[in-house]
Structure formats: structure tokens, C-alpha cells
């Protein structure tokens, strides 16, 4: 059973930050789908859990100019039902559809998924191709940091113990950009990814790729972009030879655990399939 701990519900963000800063062994909690499992098993032994998911600053999805700001307390279910996410960030929407199961999606939050930084966190590859930034706050002030820099090593991030993720900020991709996401696990729902791949490509009117982003999860200690593969695609039409090389480069950028080298082959295949799809779609559009 869960051990005893204090459950603190602050009145405001400032209260929350103060509580986290001053209470020994206090952990912020929103969905709790990772944290409570660890508390129950004894891996995490909190003296207090500070409820933060409901705070105004962590709630809601809003547009600010060319950017979309997603409150860290936004649940995966809320992401899924948000029309703006579906129409403007389809790659994140797609990642959300593969996330765990309905029960977990109703509780788990985007901020928690990033803060936990499991190698197989489903939102991470999608947010990496969206060039997301993470907004952090503490009693010492606020800062914003690129997601690539935020995710440091498995289950570790740059978040200081007294810091709270407020929101995730992404630039809305150009209208012509095409995003895709694919997950492979051992079963169709409710499982951790064996490999996640997200791609986001933008083309000019001549069909030349002007921006390319490829990210993968679960195939490396932390979710990461495949910058060499991206460079291969930019400045060129999406021809089979380019796709093949980009897929190879993405596979080479994967760093699976010993014994899981097959994941490189899976990455190569998934990237190939996603890029093939985009090539076909691009052809359709131009045609």
C-alpha cells in the first residue's frame, strides 16, 4: 500500500514553488501515473506530494502568435480532444493516440511524461520534431530550455528539485509541413514503445525539402533527433535514394542497449515507411 506522506494543495503557483523549495523530500505531482507507482514500490520515499496539475499556469492549451503553449498539467486525453492540436500539431496528436491506454491517458500529463524522461516516453519524439521548449519555474525565477537539452539521461532531466515545469512551447509548423508518428510495441495498446519515430518535413513549391526533423524514442538512452539524416533531406526532393540514406543515418544515430541492436533495423524500416508515405502524399499534392 502507499506509505504515509503529506498531501499539499497550494493556493497559487507561488505557494507551490515555495512549498517545493522549502519542504524536505517534497515532490510535485500531477497525474501521478509514474510517481505513485514508484512511491508504492518504495523507490521514491516522499515526505510530501505537492499537487500542481490544477494550477492555472499549468492548465490549458493556448496560441501565442506563431506558437502553441501547452500547460504542463495538460493530460494526454486533453491533448487528444483538442482540435488545435489535431489540426496544427498532428504529429503530437498521433503520438497521443498511441500513449498507454484510456485510463492512463486520462491522468498522465505532458509535463509528467517529460519530467519522468523514460527512454520510451511517447510525447518526447513528437515534441522534439516540433522543436519544443520547456518552461521551468522556481522561487529563483523562470527559464526556458530546449527539449533536447532538457532530456539528459534516462529518467534524468535538467529540472532542479525545486523546479516545476510550467508549460511546453512549440512553434506551429508551416501549413505545408507534414508530420508523422509511428510506435512499435509488443501489443497494440497499453505497452511501452520498443521504438517510436516522429518526422516533420516542410517543402517549398518545387517539392524541395526545406526543413526536416526526425526523432526517435526507446532506441537510445533518451529520445533524440537524427541531425545527419535531417541534413541529408534538406535542400533535396524526397527521392528514394535520399530516403534510404536518411533512414540509414537515423538507424546509425540510434544507440540501443546491448542485445537490442535489432532496434536499429526497426528504426530504419519505420523511417523509410514514414518518409515513403510523405513522398507519396507530397506527390499527390503536387499532382
Amino acid at each position: 500500500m502507499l506509505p504515509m506522506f503529506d498531501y499539499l494543495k497550494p493556493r497559487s503557483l507561488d505557494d507551490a514553488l515555495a512549498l517545493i523549495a522549502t519542504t524536505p523530500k517534497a515532490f510535485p505531482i500531477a497525474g501521478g501515473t509514474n510517481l505513485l507507482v514508484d512511491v508504492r514500490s518504495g523507490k521514491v520515499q516522499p515526505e510530501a506530494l505537492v499537487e500542481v496539475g490544477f494550477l492555472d499556469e499549468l492548465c490549458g492549451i493556448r496560441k501565442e502568435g506563431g506558437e502553441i503553449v501547452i500547460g504542463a498539467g495538460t493530460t494526454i486525453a486533453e491533448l487528444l480532444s483538442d482540435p488545435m492540436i489535431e489540426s496544427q500539431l498532428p504529429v503530437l496528436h498521433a503520438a497521443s493516440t498511441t500513449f498507454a491506454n484510456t485510463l492512463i491517458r486520462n491522468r498522465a500529463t505532458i509535463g509528467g511524461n517529460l519530467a519522468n524522461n523514460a527512454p520510451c516516453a511517447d510525447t518526447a519524439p513528437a515534441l522534439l520534431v516540433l522543436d519544443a521548449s520547456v518552461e521551468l519555474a522556481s522561487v529563483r525565477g523562470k527559464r526556458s530550455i530546449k527539449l533536447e537539452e532538457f532530456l539528459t539521461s534516462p529518467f534524468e532531466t535538467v529540472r532542479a528539485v525545486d523546479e516545476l515545469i510550467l508549460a511546453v512551447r512549440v512553434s506551429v509548423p508551416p501549413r505545408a509541413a507534414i508530420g508523422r508518428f509511428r510506435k512499435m510495441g509488443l501489443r497494440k495498446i497499453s505497452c511501452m514503445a520498443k521504438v517510436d519515430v516522429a518526422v516533420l518535413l516542410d517543402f517549398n513549391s518545387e517539392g524541395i525539402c526545406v526543413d526536416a526533423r526526425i526523432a526517435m524514442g526507446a532506441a537510445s538512452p533518451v529520445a533524440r533527433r537524427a541531425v545527419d539524416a535531417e541534413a541529408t533531406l534538406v535542400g533535396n526532393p524526397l527521392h528514394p535514394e535520399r530516403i534510404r540514406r536518411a533512414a540509414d543515418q537515423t538507424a546509425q544515430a540510434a544507440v540501443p542497449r546491448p542485445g537490442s541492436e535489432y532496434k536499429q533495423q526497426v528504426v530504419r524500416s519505420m523511417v523509410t515507411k514514414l518518409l515513403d508515405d510523405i513522398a507519396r502524399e507530397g506527390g499527390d499534392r503536387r499532382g
Partner: protein
Amino acid sequence: MLEHVTPKPLPDVDLPTLKQVGKPLRRVDALGKAVGATVYAADFAMPNMLHAKVFRSPFPSARIAKLDVETARALPGVACVMTGEDTHGAKLNTDLPGQTGRAARAGSDAPVLASDIVRYVGEPIALVAAESIAIAEQALRLIEVEFEELPAVFDPEDALRPDAPILFEPDNVVAKYAIRKGDLAAGMADADLVVENTFTMPFIEHAYLEPDAGVAWVDEQGVINIRVCTQVVEHFRSIARALNVPQNKIRIRGTMVGGGFGSKEDVTVEIFLAFLARETGRPVKLEYTREEAFAATSKRHPFVVTHRTGVKKDGRITASEIKMVADSGAYPYLTPYVLLYATGMAAGPYKVDNLHVDSVAAATNQTFTSAFRGFGGPQAALGYEQQMDEIAKTLGLDSLEVRRINYLKRGETTTTGQEVKSAAWSEECATRAVHALGDRAPSTETRRIGRGMASYFQSYGRIMWFHDTSQAWVGLEQDGTVVLRCGVPDIGAGQSNSICQIAAELLGVPLERVTIYSTDSAVTPLAGTSTATRQLYMSGNAVTLACNEIRSRLLKRASESLGVAEEALDLGESRVFAISDSSKAIDLPDLAKLCASEGIGLSHLAQFNAPFTDGLDPETGQGDIWPDFTFGAHAVELAVDTETGEIELLKSAACHDVGRAINPAAVRGQICGGSHQGLGYALMEDFELKDGYIQTPSFAEYLIPTVLDFPTTDAIILESGTGVGPFGAKGIGEPALTPAAPAVANAVADALGVRIHDLPLTPKRILDAVQRSGRKDDGTAE
């Protein structure tokens, strides 16, 4: 392969039309479960109740150098802490569960609490009972213990080597069998070709919905009552022995079981509860967490199975040499019997006249293995059915054709020389299962379609030298309703419903007019274990005997009233009527009152005895083991992604001869559920241990199939009417699982052109096989 197969015509079977049996009636247990009225083991509480927790070994092999529970005992709110010293070294009597059996096997039964050596991670060492779960958990942390780690062994083949650490003297051999049938050398010499393959299977977790739980208390007679989810209420005897109390001072009140699959065939929480209730004199509750249910209860045996088969060019088997190595884990539990089942079914539903089987189970420092739906049968089938496909492939023949010419027929003998006396509809079932797949989907370069099928035969009813019995009491009330008392544990497969439906049939009342009281070792007649696919056979026959006695009394008295001969009367719709003129009738309530006023008893206790035999020939392993066998087949079609290693199961069809379907909806449920479990065995389930430590401690890591993963199995039910159960029924509970996994393995081999010899068929293994097959794709888009 496996296309355009025509169902083999069925022999003529004349099954009588029945009124209640054979209909998909709403099961008697359905409504209570649907509305949440069923009080499962963990749903129960008593005033003044304590909460228990178990302190377990964190090491796979260690000596307990120091165990000090005084600090834990002193914690306020702790009622008692018990160690092996307090249980006086009591052992679980894991041998021969149930009410019968002649001799206990000598040996290495697990201690209730380890006090010297621990042999697996999760082995119980101490018990705590406290005022709350929180206090009990705190007390666990106050137990002071020091371990000295000992050498350990984690692989059964390693465990059999001379230098292996020994779990129990003199060696790690837990059980060993040898079958010698015909002349192996002559059969091999007669062969055109010899095919040899080795197959492996992992540990599997039962993954029942309901973690083990129970409440125990001592009543005013000094009887220790234990309300628990179990497949075996007769464990009261071994519990009495462990506690050194008379057997009539332990009462098991079995609850509706939220899934057992064999795991609740062993003693789980009930023995701890008995010790704690006696020690404290207060009600005690113990409920395992999911992680504890994973770590503390049995698993399916990993097997290594090698087949060396001599065949003629036309596929006929001339000789077969089979070797099996099973992993028993740290304690024997039911391993000797699981190994016997696998050994006795090793050659499958095929006529093999020249046969050697050598099997051995070895102890390792891992979670113990014991009963699991199929009880060694699925492992045997994974051996013989993958081998049949390999034989067909080697000879360039159709796999169904190779099976067809080797299928065992009625009157022929099994691996142990036992004659099959009921219908053996292997070909009837196989052709129907394959036919049900319809047209084959087209393959593409990277999405290979594969088809596979598997036949099987599986016993139902217990090993006959266990001298199995079942009792049932049936009574007709004066308003014409029926009361059934039978100790049958209902583990969700419809055990209680089946016997109610039989009583309704024989006493001529609607199912709603039958009420059953079950699963109480003190007040319901003992019906034996809900294991071995035996309840319909055993208790169904016991209920039939009891009902027929009452039925004959009713017909006799009605005959006098109506002036119609007994043979010309029938029972139905709560009345006795003349078959030729149904207006000549007497209502059951009137007849029951009449009997009561005249002193004609309308209740009866009956006992059904299974055939008793003496066991196998010690030299040859030949002899009769089981009362009868179920035959059937499973077929699947699937798609393998050769680039990602993903498998999509497209179609699944199973056909079984169940003898007679007492409740076709329940039979369908067994076939669909059993096949899903078997499909998961092939495709994802893997209870992983690394150096004795569990790598899949919960449902986050141990994956079982969800409803979205596989299509619903098309269940084709055949009824030969030839079984030894009531109305010619055979058993289907365990058989439903057995052929599913080999069918999948064969389909994957069909898709890839190479076989993967190890389960489960994960993407990693698929991609390795793709590489082997030389069809490695370089990832270029087509």
C-alpha cells in the same frame, strides 16, 4: 499450404434432444458477477480483523544467518510475528492435492516458512499480523535479517551437471520418466529420413484477474475457518497436518475464484492465514499485491523439447525419440505430475509404434513451477506440432497430409500404450479449423502472410491411480425447486453452472429453479479439485447419479398416480407427464408434497468414482494414465512484417470435439479464452528471470494480450457424444489452450520460410530469423 481444405464429413451421431443441456442458457453465476453482488475473497472483512503481510527472501540462494523479529514484534499495533521456529518447521504438503491418493512422494516439500536456506526470490520467511496494513508493512521493515549468499543455478540443464549447486540432496532431479514402446532402432532403420529439432518455451505467469486473498478466523467450536479463493478446498487436510490439528478442525470456505488457471491449485495464502488465526485468536486477512502474486506463486514450466523422428518419404512416422527437460524452479510442487502429463502426451495424437521418451525435471533457484492450464500438455504440443511441420517441410509435403496419415484413430494406442476408447476426430477438427480461415490474404515483399495449424490430444480427468472421486447431494424442495450441494470450486469456467444445468435437465425444471451451494469443505459434499479438466466429468457424473436416483423415485410415484408405466413418463417444465399424452401429468410441487407426506425421500448423496488403475510399468512406462482424451485443432493466419518484426494475427479458428456441449455459450467462452491465452504464449508472454531475479514484476513489464491484439477465435464445436462425462461430454477447459501456440509458431515459420525454435516470437527473434532466411531487407523503398 493449408488452402482449399474441405471439412471431412462427420460420422453419423445420434444425440438425444435435451431440454436444458445443450442450450446457451444464462449461467447461474452470471448475474451476481455482472451486478457486483459476488463477494470475492478480497471483498470480505470481519470485525476486529487483523491484516497480514509476508516477509520474503530477496535472494535466489542464501543461508539465513540471522533472523531477529523482536523489534518488529514490539511495534505497537503488531499482534504477532511468526517465523519457521513458530511454525515448527511445518511443510506444505504439495503432493497429491485433493481428497484421494495413496502415497505421498518422498521429498522436498516446501517449508511453510524458510528458516535455514532460501532457494528463490520471494520465498516466505516470516509472517506479520497487525491492526492495519500500514503497521504490518512497517513491521516487515523492522525484521532484522542477515543472509549469506550461496551458489545458485538458473538453468535446468546446468542443474543436471555434476558440478551444479544442489538444491536438495542427492541431486537436482525432481522427476524422471522413460517410455519404451516398440523397437526404436528397427523403426529408425526403417525410416527414409530422420528429422531432428529442439524447441524451447519460457516461464509463463497465470495472470489471473484476482490476486490471491483470504480471511481466516477461529469459530466457537475451535474450528479454523478459512475463506479463500482456491481451486482445491481439500487442502484443509494438508493444512491440518501442518498445524498438527485434527482434519475436522479446518474448514475451507471457498469463494468464487477470479481466475486460477492452475495457480490456485497449490496452497497459497490459506496456510499463512490458518497459522495466524490460531496464533492470534482473531480474524486475519491476507491479500497479495499483484507483484506478490507474481513472485510468490507458481509459473508454467519452461521446457526444452527435442524430437528425433524417423519418417518414410510419404510422411509416415516409423520411429520417434523424444527428450524433455523441464525447469521445476526451487520446489517440486506439482512438477512430477506436469512432467508425467508432458511425457504421456509427448508423441501427440499420432500413431507411433516405435517410441522412446526420456524426460527429466530439474530444480533451479527460480520461482517454482507447477500447474498451469494444460499441465505440460501445451509444452508437449509445442514439441510434436512444430516437429510435424518440420517433417512436412523436409519432405516437401503438405503439413495436413503428413498429419492425416499419422493421426491416432479410435482403438489405437497413445504414447503410453493406452487405448483411445472415445472418438478421435483429429482430421474432422483440423480440416474445419483450416477451412474456417477462408481465403488467404496476399503477401507483399515485406508483409509475409503465413498459415499454421496444430492438432493435439489432451486428457481430461485426473491420473487414474489417484483414485479420484466426487460427491454431490441433490434435493427436491416441496415447491419443486432444486437444491444442489457440491464442493466444486468455481474458477470462472462455469463449473457450478454445468452441474446445475445437468440437474435441471434430469429433474425437469428450468435452470432458474436450481440453487447451488458449493465449495465448502465442511458442509458441501467433497467434489475434488477444480483442476485437470475434471469437474464436468467427475461432479457432472456425481450429480447425474444423484439426480437419477431422485428422478426414478419421482417417476415411480407418478406412475402410480397417473396409471402410466414409468418408461412411458418424462420430466419437463416442472411436471411429470405421459410421453404419448402430455395432458396426463402431475406438477412437480404436487408430486413432491405427495412424496413428503408418504415418507419418500427426495434427496440423495451420490459418489462417482473414476476408473482406478495401478500406474505405469516401471520399465517401459506403458499403461493407462487418464480416463479419456479430448481431440481438436487450431488454425491461424498472420502477417509478419519482415522489416520491423511485428506480427499481426489476422484470423484464428479452433475446432474441438467436446463430446457434448452442456452449455455451448460457456464452451465457446472456454475456447475463445483458452486460445487467447495460448496465442499470448506464442507471441508475447515471457516471465523473465535473470540470475534468479524477476525482470517482469508487474503487468507493466509482463505483457498479456488485450482484446485489441487478436481477432476473436472462431470457435467450432463438434459433438461426438463419446466422452466419459455426463451426456457423452468430454473436457474443454485445458484443451482449449493447447493447440493455439504451436499453430502460431507454424504460421510464422510458414511466413518466413525458417523456424524460430524459441518462444515467444518477439520482433527481435523475427528479425534474427529474417536475417537467417537470407531475406534481409536493406530498407530501400519499393
